[in-house]
C-alpha cells in the first residue's frame, strides 16, 4: 500500500492533479474508457488505485463506464469517471439516471473542440450547456471549472464533497489546455484535507425510506447490502424508492431533486475575483480562458482601464445573483470563453438588461489571446 495523499510540492499536469485530487477525496473506484485529452487521468489513476486498495476498470465504452460508477457508488464507494466531449455525449443517459436515483459520483470532462469527433487533441469549452442540459428532463446539476492544476486538485475534492452532500453527479468541466498544463501543485497532509461522505442511513432497517429528505432536502443514503430497505429506479419514484407514476409523485420527486440544489446555492456556488472592487468593466470567464482574462485585466489596468475579473469556479448552478448585483453598478460585461457564446447567454440573462454584455468567443482549437480581449474591451466600452 502507498499513501493516497502524495503530500508535498509537485510539478504536474492538470490531468494528473485531477487523479490525485480524487484519491485524496477518497475515490476508490474509477470506471472509464480512454479518450484524448482525458486519457492521462485514467492512465494515472489506473496505476494509483491498486496502491490504495481501490479498483480501476476499463469498460467497453462510455455508456458502461458511467453505469459502472453509478453502481459502485450505490455499493458505497466514492466513484469517478473521466472523458471528453464525445464520451460525455454517451454518458449523459446514465448521468440522468444518477440524477434521478440521487447517486453521488464525479464526472470529469476534459473538453476538446467539437462537435462530433472535432479536433481530438485541441481544447475548447464547448460543452458547457451540454453539462447543464445534456440529459433529458428538467434537473439541477453541479459543474465546476478549475483554472489550474492546483485548482483541479482542490476542486476534485470539492466535487466529491458536493456530490456526497447533495447526492448529485458533479461535473468537472476542465479543458485540454488546463488538463495538459504542468504547474506547481502543493498537496497538503492527509489530515488537512476536508472530505465529506454522504448522509448515513439510521433507524429501523426494514422501515427505512431511501428517498425521505433530511433537513437540507437531501435523503440519507443506505448502502446496497447494509440491510436497510433499498430500491433504486430511473422511473419516477416515491420515498420508498418504488415506482410512482402519478402527476403528484412526479411533483414531489422533482421538487426534491431540484430543490436540494436551488435551496442551497450559497453553500454550493464558488467564485473568485481579481481587481473587481473598483472595476467598471467586468470580464466573466472560467477555465483556461480565465488565465487569458487575468493577463488582459493586467494589461487593461496598465493602460488606465478599470477592468476586473469575475471568475466562475462553479459554473452550474450559475451565480446569477452575483452577476445581477454587479450589473447594477458596472459599465458592462465581457464574457471570455472557448465557444461561440454559451455562458455569455447566462451572463446576459442574469444582467437582466442592466448592463451591456459582450462576447469574446472562439470556436476552439487554440486559446484566446489577451490582446483580443483587450481590443474588445476598448471597442465595446
Amino acid at each position, binding site marked *: 500500500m502507498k499513501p493516497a495523499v502524495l503530500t508535498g510540492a*509537485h*510539478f504536474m499536469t492538470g490531468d494528473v492533479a485531477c487523479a490525485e485530487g480524487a484519491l485524496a477525496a477518497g475515490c476508490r473506484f474509477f470506471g472509464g474508457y480512454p479518450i484524448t485529452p482525458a486519457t492521462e487521468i485514467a492512465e494515472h489513476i489506473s496505476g494509483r488505485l491498486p496502491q490504495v486498495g481501490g479498483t480501476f476498470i476499463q469498460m467497453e465504452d462510455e455508456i458502461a463506464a458511467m453505469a459502472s460508477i453509478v453502481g459502485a457508488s450505490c455499493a458505497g464507494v466514492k466513484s469517478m469517471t473521466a472523458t471528453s466531449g464525445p464520451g460525455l455525449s454517451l454518458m449523459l443517459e446514465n448521468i440522468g439516471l444518477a440524477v434521478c436515483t440521487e447517486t453521488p459520483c464525479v464526472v470529469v470532462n476534459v473538453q476538446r473542440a467539437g462537435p462530433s469527433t472535432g479536433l481530438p*487533441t485541441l481544447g475548447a469549452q464547448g460543452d458547457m450547456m451540454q453539462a447543464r442540459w445534456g440529459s433529458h428532463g428538467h434537473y439541477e446539476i453541479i459543474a465546476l471549472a478549475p483554472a489550474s492544476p492546483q485548482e483541479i486538485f482542490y476542486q476534485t475534492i470539492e466535487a466529491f464533497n458536493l456530490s456526497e452532500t447533495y447526492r448529485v453527479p458533479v461535473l468537472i468541466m476542465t479543458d485540454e489546455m488546463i488538463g495538459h*498544463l504542468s504547474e506547481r501543485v502543493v498537496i497538503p497532509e492527509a489530515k488537512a484535507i476536508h472530505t465529506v461522505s454522504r448522509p448515513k442511513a439510521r433507524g429501523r432497517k426494514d422501515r427505512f425510506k431511501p428517498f425521505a429528505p433530511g433537513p437540507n432536502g437531501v435523503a440519507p443514503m443506505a448502502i446496497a447490502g447494509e440491510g436497510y430497505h433499498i430500491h433504486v429506479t430511473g422511473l419516477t419514484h416515491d420515498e420508498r424508492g418504488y415506482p410512482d407514476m402519478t402527476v403528484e409523485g412526479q411533483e414531489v420527486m422533482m421538487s426534491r431533486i431540484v430543490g436540494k440544489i436551488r435551496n442551497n446555492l450559497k453553500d454550493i456556488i464558488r467564485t473568485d475575483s481579481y481587481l473587481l472592487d473598483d472595476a467598471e468593466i467586468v470580464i466573466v470567464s472560467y477555465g483556461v480562458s480565465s488565465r487569458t482574462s487575468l493577463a488582459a485585466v493586467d494589461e487593461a489596468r496598465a493602460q488606465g482601464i478599470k477592468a476586473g475579473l469575475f471568475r466562475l469556479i462553479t459554473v452550474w448552478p450559475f451565480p446569477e445573483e452575483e452577476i445581477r448585483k454587479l450589473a447594477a453598478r458596472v459599465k458592462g460585461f465581457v464574457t471570455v470563453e472557448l465557444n461561440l457564446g454559451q455562458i455569455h447567454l447566462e451572463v446576459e440573462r442574469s444582467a437582466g438588461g442592466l448592463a451591456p454584455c459582450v462576447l469574446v468567443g472562439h470556436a476552439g482549437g487554440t486559446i484566446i489571446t489577451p490582446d483580443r480581449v483587450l481590443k474588445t474591451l476598448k471597442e465595446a466600452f
Partner: protein
Amino acid sequence: MTTKINFPKRQEILFTGFGGQGIVLAGRILGKAAVIGDHKESTLVQAYGPEARGGACSAQVIIAEGTIHYPYVRYPDVLVCMSQGGFDKFIGDMKKDGTLLIDQDLVNPHTVFPKGNDKTYFAIPATRMAEELGRKMMANIIMLGFFTAVTGAVSITAAENAVTESVPKGTEKTNIKAFHKGYDYGMAVLKGRKKKASGKRGA
C-alpha cells in the same frame, strides 16, 4: 560567471525540435527544476497530438518570480532550436534581445544571422555529442545542460535533481553525465567569449 544573462522576473522559453527528440521532457525537467528546486513559479505547455510524434514539436516554459497568469509563450526570451523547422518557424517571434540556442549540426541560422556574427547566439553539437556518448536520445539532456550554463534560468543543483527524478530508472547516471557534457561546453563558450571581450578591451 558574470557573463550570464541578467535573469528577468519573467522569462519565456521555447524549446523546439521534432517529435522523439525529448523536447517535451526537456521542458518538463526545466519547469520542475524551477518549481521544486529553485522555488519559483513555472508553467509548461507541451505540444500534444500528432505533431509530438515525429513532426514539429515544441515545449513552452515560463519561469517567473510571481504568479503566472497566461501560461503561453508569445515572444520567447530564450529560443532553443533542435531542428531547422523550429528555427524557421519561431525565430521571428523571439524578442529583439532574446537568446538563441541551437544544435549546430541540425540548424543553420545563417538565413537570419550572417556568417561571422556567431556571437549573437549559442551553438552546440548536442546530437553529435550524444552520439559520442553512445546515446543519441540524450541530446535533449545535453542541450538542457548547455541551456543551464548559458542562461542561468535555473540553478545547476535544481536542474541536476530534476534530471535525476525525470529520466527512466537506471539511466540517471548516464543522463547526469550527458547534462554535464552540455553544461561544461556552455561554461567553456562563456569563458571563451569573456576572454575575447576583455582581450579586445586591452588592445
